[in-house]
């Protein structure tokens, strides 16, 4: 058990570093309304957060992260641009691994800036990179925006693109959808049988539940349209695979993505943004020829990030979770703001892990 006082001291040091770079300290409540978080993250958050309740306020969650309350606070009464820092405990329910902490400190920074997103990305990354420099960690980076742009560029129906975009963070289902849309996977027998029936509702049994006949018929119509749609071409499948396979130092990754963009011009703007971000990182003294980039990074465990993503890892301690993680989460602000959007990027450090690795001083 690492000494709590040492962790608090490390957290204070980190926060002071962020404050010295212009971040304003903020506090949030430990108990958060569960509804917002459940709506945002879905059932997965229930497995990861402690939920409690009372008769007055209903279901409350022990803060699983700071991002959502900080975004809400900023959207209510923040002036722009704004940069915030915070430190405190977060709580994560553990059902399987007794070695994972269910309560730990986080120190974070969140930056809201509409003017130059790539410069903002670089600023947040550099803040954390510089703070953690003494630990000699490996930084991993990625950019979900490139895959999103590629999906959007596919020559297929809007419905298929929406389905793929919805599953960007669930690689297994994404893969299954690609297989089906490209004609590589066979249509399940039951679906083929359904589509062949002249009256699909014949003998279907009584209508029960909230999902109405109109909803069932509308999906059947969509399935019929989809069955009549041309498969996504081999060429486009190969391009998506090529993007997902990019795993290189950042300078080489950029070259590879530029090559791919020749065949898929629609991803060019996203690739340009990567180039601007790398310039901004270089301007902050980060050697991009030593910075790893992986196009599929952040797809499995960072569901609300939709652009730049990063994590810092202790390579000689593979048993530890990442010491810091972060990224851009514009879509999250769009959902929380009910139409309003504030481009945002942020990151968190776990001072407990910093102490485990020998500390910053």
């Amino acid at each position: 058990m690492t000494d709590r006082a040492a962790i608090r001291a490390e957290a204070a040091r980190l926060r002071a570093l962020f404050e010295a770079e212009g971040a304003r300290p903020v506090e949030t409540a430990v108990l958060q309304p569960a509804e917002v978080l459940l709506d945002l993250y879905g059932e997965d958050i229930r497995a990861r957060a402690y939920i409690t309740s009372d008769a007055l306020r209903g279901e409350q969650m022990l803060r699983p992260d700071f991002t959502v309350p900080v975004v809400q606070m900023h959207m209510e009464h923040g002036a722009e641009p704004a940069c915030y820092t915070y430190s405190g405990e977060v709580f994560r329910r553990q059902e399987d691994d007794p070695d994972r902490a269910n309560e730990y400190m986080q120190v974070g920074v969140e930056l809201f800036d509409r003017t130059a997103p790539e410069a903002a990305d670089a600023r947040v990354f550099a803040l954390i990179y510089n703070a953690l420099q003494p630990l000699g960690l490996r930084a991993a980076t990625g950019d979900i925006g490139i895959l999103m742009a590629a999906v959007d560029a596919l020559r297929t129906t809007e419905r298929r693109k929406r389905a793929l975009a919805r599953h960007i963070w669930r690689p297994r289902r994404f893969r299954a959808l690609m297989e089906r849309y490209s004609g590589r996977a066979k249509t399940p027998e039951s679906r083929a049988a359904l589509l062949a029936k002249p009256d699909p509702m014949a003998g279907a049994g009584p209508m029960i539940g909230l999902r109405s006949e109109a909803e069932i018929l509308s999906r059947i119509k969509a399935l019929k349209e989809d069955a009549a749609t041309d498969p996504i071409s081999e060429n486009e499948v190969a391009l998506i695979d090529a993007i997902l396979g990019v795993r290189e130092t950042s300078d080489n990754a950029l070259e590879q993505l530029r090559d791919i963009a020749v065949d898929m011009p629609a991803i060019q703007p996203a690739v340009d943004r990567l180039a601007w971000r790398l310039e901004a990182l270089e301007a902050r003294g980060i050697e991009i020829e030593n910075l790893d980039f992986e196009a599929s990074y952040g797809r499995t465990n960072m569901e609300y990030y939709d652009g730049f993503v990063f994590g810092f890892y202790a390579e000689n301690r593979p048993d530890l979770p990442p010491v810091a993680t972060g990224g851009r989460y514009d879509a999250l602000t769009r959902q929380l703001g009910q139409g309003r959007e504030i481009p945002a990027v942020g990151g968190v450090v776990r001072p407990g892990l910093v102490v485990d690795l020998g500390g910053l001083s």
Partner: protein
Amino acid sequence: MSLKLGVPSKGRLMEKTFDWFGDRGIELGRAGSDREYAGYVQGIDNVELVLLSAGEIPRELAAGRIHLGVTGTDLVREKLGQWDRVVEELAPLGFGQADLVLAVPTVWVDVNTLDDLDAAAAAFRLTHGFRMRIATKYHRQVREFLRDNGVADYQLVDSQGATEGTVKNETAEAIADITSTGDTLRANHLKILEDGLILRSQATLFRARRAAMEEADRTTLRTLLAKLALD
């Protein structure tokens, strides 16, 4: 000290367990009246029968308050994190078979696979403004199963009984529950998804890995396992 054996305290599960041990020369039974939860063991010395609700047996095994226990695999997996580190499966007992399955209204002719369920859930959320509700008491297993299969836009609602009725009562759109024959599902106009089998469960004899044992208990356990032909 004696070796403690936890067995379901009532119903078919208890009787079948008694039969299973009886067939192997160990007679288990309830002492006194039907209301009294005390038991006896004949055919082996130093084994104590503890009658418990099947749902409590996983917890008692995990706490080491009983050394052996008979309960369903479904309950062990639902209630114990890293269950295979906490208990050892000694033998499936061949009864109490039940499958944990995902079922939807039969009238959903467009939904037969998890892929369909996921697509229907996305559309449902857009139409109704909330996530499709799946009623169950097996939260962990259902959540893990749906996560592994990449199904999104659903929520689990707790249902401790009469789960098959939740769809008709409009408190859920789909269910995940234990079924042995599927009759109750059919009677409630529900069908199992083609790839909706979450777990095959049956009554199983478990050993608690962390229960404290004296040397005499170890000898008793060896004798017992020999009699049960599990050594």
